C-alpha cells in the first residue's frame, strides 16, 4: 500500500497500520450484517429478509 503524497485526505494523519485495522474491522462488521440478513439459516430471519434475498440474488431456499 502506498501512503501517497497525493492524498489530501485526513486519513493520512493515521498510520497505515491503524487504517488497515479500521478497514479490516469495518469490512468484518459489514460482512456480519450482510450475513445475518442475507445468509442466516434461522427461519424467522429468512422469512423477514425473504424478498431482500431474492432481489439481491443471495442464495435462498
Amino acid at each position, binding site marked *: 500500500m502506498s501512503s501517497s503524497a497525493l492524498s489530501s485526505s485526513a486519513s493520512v494523519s493515521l498510520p497505515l497500520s491503524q487504517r488497515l485495522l479500521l478497514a479490516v*474491522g469495518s469490512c468484518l462488521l459489514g460482512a456480519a450484517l450482510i450475513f445475518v440478513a442475507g445468509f442466516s439459516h434461522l*427461519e424467522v430471519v429468512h422469512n423477514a*429478509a425473504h424478498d431482500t434475498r431474492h432481489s439481491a*440474488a443471495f442464495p435462498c431456499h
Partner: protein
Amino acid sequence: MIKRIAQTAGFAGLLAAIVLTLLQSLWVTPLILQAETYENAAPAAEAAGHEHAAAVHDHAAHDHSHAASHDHGAAWAPEDGWQRLLSTGLSNLVVAVGFALMLAGLFTLRAPGRTWQGLLWGLGGFATFSLAPSAGLPPELPGTEAADLLLRQYWWLGTAAATAAGLGLLAFGRHQALRIGGVLLLALPHLIGAPQPEVHASLAPAALAQEFVLASLLTNALFWSALGLAAAWFFGRARSA
C-alpha cells in the same frame, strides 16, 4: 475516524436502502409475488420437487424443514402488505449499511478524491456482489429448483471474495504480474463453476424468470451506484466538517 466511518455507513446505507426499497416495490417484488401465485397453486408439485432435492442431496431433514418454512407455517413470517414491505425495507437497510461499512472501511485506505469516484467504487461493488455471483447463480424467483443451499452459499461467498480481490489487484496493482493475477482471480470461480441442481425446473414461466434476472440486476446496479456515490459524498463531507 471511527465516527467518520460510522456516519458514512449510516447515512449512505440509509439513502441507498430507501432507493433499493422503492425500486423493489416498483419492479422486483411484484415479480416475486407473481411467482408465489404459481408456487401456492402447485403445492403438490412443490412437495415433489423438495422430495426430489432431498433424495438427491441426502439432506432430508433440512429440506423438510425448509418446505415447511416455505409455506410460512413453521416460523413467523411477515403478512403480505405493510408488514412484508416493512421487514423487507429493514432487511434492505441492514444489508445496505453492511455494504456501506465495507466501502467506508476501504475509503480509509483509498479515499475517493472526488464524489464521482464513488460511482466507480459502487460499480465495483455491483460487479463483486451482484454481477459475478449472478453469472453462476442467476437471481431466482421463489419456486425454482436449485442445488444444496450451503454449497451455493459457499460458492457465492468465494466468488464475491475472489472478484473483490481480483478487481482490487486490477485497479491498484502496480505490476503486470499483479494485474494478471487479478484477471485469474476474476475468472477462477467461473472456471470452477457454480453448484447446479440435478434438474433445472421452475414453477414460474421462463419469461417471468428472465424478467426477474433483468429486474434484479438493474435494481442492484442502481442501488450500488447510489451507495457508492452517497458513501463517497458523505466520506468527503465528514472530512471537511
